[in-house]
Every structure is written in C-alpha cells, then in structure tokens.
C-alpha cells in the first residue's frame, strides 16, 4: 500500500502528532503504516527491517550449499524446506519494509551495492555437513532469541511479520539440534565433525547480538521507541544460559575455557569476545563477504530478463486505457483444497478471476 504522509502543517500540529505517537508507544499500542511517525523512527525501521530481510536471503546461501549433498533424503527435504522458509521470511520482511514507503527493488539495490548490511554471521563458510546443524542450533537459536521480543515491536507490520517468522522458525532450530545430536552420537568421524562445527560457530553466534551495550550506536533510541525490547548484552546472556545445558546434552563442548556458572548472578559467565574479528567481518573482510554478495548480485542480474519477460507479457495483455499499471484484473481469487499437504489448490476447479468482494 502506498504510504501517504500527512501534509507538513504548523508546529502545533507537528507537536500534536508527536504527542499522539509518544502516547501510543508509551501505551504499548502499535504504530501502523499510515500513522504519523518521526522521520528517525521510520528511517531506523527501514534500516533494521531491510537488514533483517537481507539477512534472510543471504542466509540461504550457506545452507543451500549443502542441499545437493545432504546425506539422507529426509535431511534433504528438511534442508530444502528450511532454505525455502528463509526466502519466504525475506519476502515477509521486505513486505513489512514496503509499508514504510520504500520498495523492494530499492532495498535490493542497496544490498547489492553494499550500502545496506546483512548479518555478518553469513559471511562464514559452511565447510562440512555439521555446519548445517550448527547453523540451525546456534545461529537460528541466536536469531530466535533476538526475534521473539520483536514480535512485540512497536511497529505493527514488523511485529506481525515476526510473529509469522517465529512461528515458522521453531522447526529450524530443532532440526539443527537433532542433526548435531545424530552426529555426536554417531561414528567417531561424525562426532568430530560436529565438534568442529560448534567450535567454529560458537563465537560468531555470540557476536550476532551486536556490540556490547556501551558501544551500541542505535540501541538506546530503539529501546525508547520499543523497536527493541532488550539490550544486546541481555539477549546474549540469555542465549548463553540456554545453550550451555543444551551443549551438554549434545555431548559437545563449547569452545570457551572461561565458561563458568556464577552462583551469585545465576548466569553462565563467558569469556571475552574478540570484537576485532566482528569488526573486520563487518567491514567486509570475513571469509565469504565477496562471495555472498556476488552470488546475490549474479542471481538478480541473470534473472533480469525473466522479470522483464513477465512484465512485457502483462503489458501486452492489459486492455488499452487500463486504469493503472498493475495488471489486468482488479482482484483474483483462488481456492485451495483444505487439509491437503502444503495447501494444494483444487486442481479441478483451478484458479479463476472474479470481482473483488473485499468486505
């Protein structure tokens, strides 16, 4: 939907809008696309949602790397479904960003030109099959820890997208854990593969929560706006506390000699994070930065003729003098057979167009 901003009015009006916005946020109400919002709030959301969407689609790559080599058909199906979900989650998020008056094409262009970021974690390579498990357990685990509070984010479309994402993502972490468990209890070589993957993914996963609170550039304002609900360090601690017993149950060791239970705080204390690595990866010096971006750009560029073809086809079928550039029919409807796997369409009837009845 096109977002219409209220006309710039007098100062008094501006203050009135600001007050309404502040009241809504303070009362834990959701801000919706057509509400007035401060420019910085909008810009922060666009940046964050876009980065989140980019992370989903770049994040397909390290796992897609193993679809063709998955060692059992069951695992192949799971991995394919998971990578597909990530594309879907990217779509939900781009669509949330689009309610803020930007379009996906524009955001993709910013990703491709390096002006918008994605999560640095995806700049690490997936070297063995166990990495698929470590990504599910640790990377998705960290992502979920970050994302669950976002379901209550003050911006409605983002919060709703996150509800959907979190619901769908619950299997992602589990499949990863199960995969590692199978390896850990398997042959010696499999166990070693699992340990090696955890060794490589543990620290980068902790870095996913972002810099420590005292160095985090955007945190305070985002918390005030209720875009963010907990600080980076809080979430990181929550994640460590969750992971330690899970690692034990896996029979794998977390690669941190300083990890110890602190009875006083009731938390697991962990060793110092190497932030120089984080910053280097962020600056583009991770093992796969170039590779990930160039694959993304290549997919987009080599798909240009396909997108152009579909547009050309649609234009040819548009009645002359059509109302707008969107398509031949104002609305379309499709019936889907209930209860069949994956919600398959009723193939006998097939989709058909009809007048909209959007009550």
């Amino acid at each position, binding site marked *: *939907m*096109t977002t*219409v901003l*209220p006309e710039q009015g007098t100062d008094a009006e501006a203050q009135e809008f600001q007050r309404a916005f502040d009241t809504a946020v303070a009362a834990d109400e959701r801000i919706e696309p*057509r*509400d*007035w919002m401060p420019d910085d709030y909008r810009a922060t959301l666009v940046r964050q949602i876009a980065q989140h969407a980019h992370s989903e689609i770049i994040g397909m790559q390290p796992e897609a790397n193993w679809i063709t080599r998955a060692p059992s058909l069951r695992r192949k199906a799971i991995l394919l479904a998971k990578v*597909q*979900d990530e594309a*879907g989650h990217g*779509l*939900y998020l781009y*669509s949330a960003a*689009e309610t803020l008056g930007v*379009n*996906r*094409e524009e955001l993709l262009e910013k990703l491709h030109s390096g002006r918008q970021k994605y999560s640095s974690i995806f700049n690490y390579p997936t070297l063995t099959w166990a990495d698929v498990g470590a990504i599910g357990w640790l990377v998705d685990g960290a992502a979920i820890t970050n994302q669950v509070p976002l379901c209550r984010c003050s911006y409605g479309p983002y919060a709703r*997208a996150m509800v*959907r994402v979190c619901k*769908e993502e619950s299997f992602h972490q589990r499949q990863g854990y199960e995969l590692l468990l199978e390896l850990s209890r398997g042959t010696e070589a499999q166990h070693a593969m699992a340990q090696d993957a955890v060794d490589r993914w543990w620290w980068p996963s902790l870095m996913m929560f972002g810099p420590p609170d005292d160095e985090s550039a955007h945190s305070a304002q985002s918390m005030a706006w209720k875009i963010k609900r907990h600080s980076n360090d809080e979430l990181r601690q929550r994640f460590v506390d969750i992971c330690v017993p899970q690692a034990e149950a896996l029979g794998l060791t977390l690669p941190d000699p300083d990890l110890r239970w602190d009875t006083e705080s009731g938390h697991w204390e962990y060793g110092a994070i190497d932030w120089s690595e984080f910053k280097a990866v962020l600056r583009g010096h991770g093992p796969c930065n170039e590779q990930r971006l160039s694959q993304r750009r290549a997919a987009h560029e080599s*798909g*240009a003729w396909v*997108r*152009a073809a*579909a*547009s050309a*086809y*649609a234009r040819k*079928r548009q009645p002359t003098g059509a*109302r*707008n*550039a*969107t*398509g*031949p*029919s*104002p*609305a*379309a*409807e*499709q*019936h*889907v*057979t*209930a*209860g*069949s*796997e*994956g*919600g398959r*369409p009723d193939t006998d009837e097939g*989709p058909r*167009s009809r007048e*909209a009845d*959007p*009550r």
Partner: protein
Amino acid sequence: MSSDWPLWEVFVRGRRGLSHTHAGSLHAPDAEMALRNARDLYTRRSEGVSIWVVPASVITASSPDEKDPFFEPASDKAYRHPTFYEVPEGVRNL
C-alpha cells in the same frame, strides 16, 4: 525493468466459515502469477482454503486525518454491543 512488477496485497481465508484476512503482500507481474505466488508463499503450511490478491495501488484507505470522523462516532454507540444490556441471572441462551 524489473521494478515494474507491482505490489499485491494478499488475503487468505484460513478455513471455511472465516472471512479473508490480510496476510501480507508480494510482487508479481499480473494477477494470475500473484495468485500462484501467494499460494506458494502464504499457504506453505496449509494456512488457507481460498486466496484473494488485490493490486496494492487500487486500495483506497482512510487517512490518519480522517480517523476521528471515521471511527469515533461508533465508540459512543455502546448499545451496539451485547455487553450493554443487563441480563437477569439464570437466564440462558441470550
């Protein structure tokens, strides 16, 4: 070129007896493809029995400025809500 795949709003009927609910949006070159994309994206886990897609650009929405005249008059009509009425204890099926 690619940017002219317009945006479509997707409405999904979760099951028979429910109305279509806004599920999200997507890009597609035309209505037929929009329906298929919507089916693939928003009913991957059997979330729906029927889908509508509508070009986002043809939706007319009330603007925030209109909010008061649009929605406030209803809020003082408490008699439209069943809880407005007192029912003596023990009376059922009302």
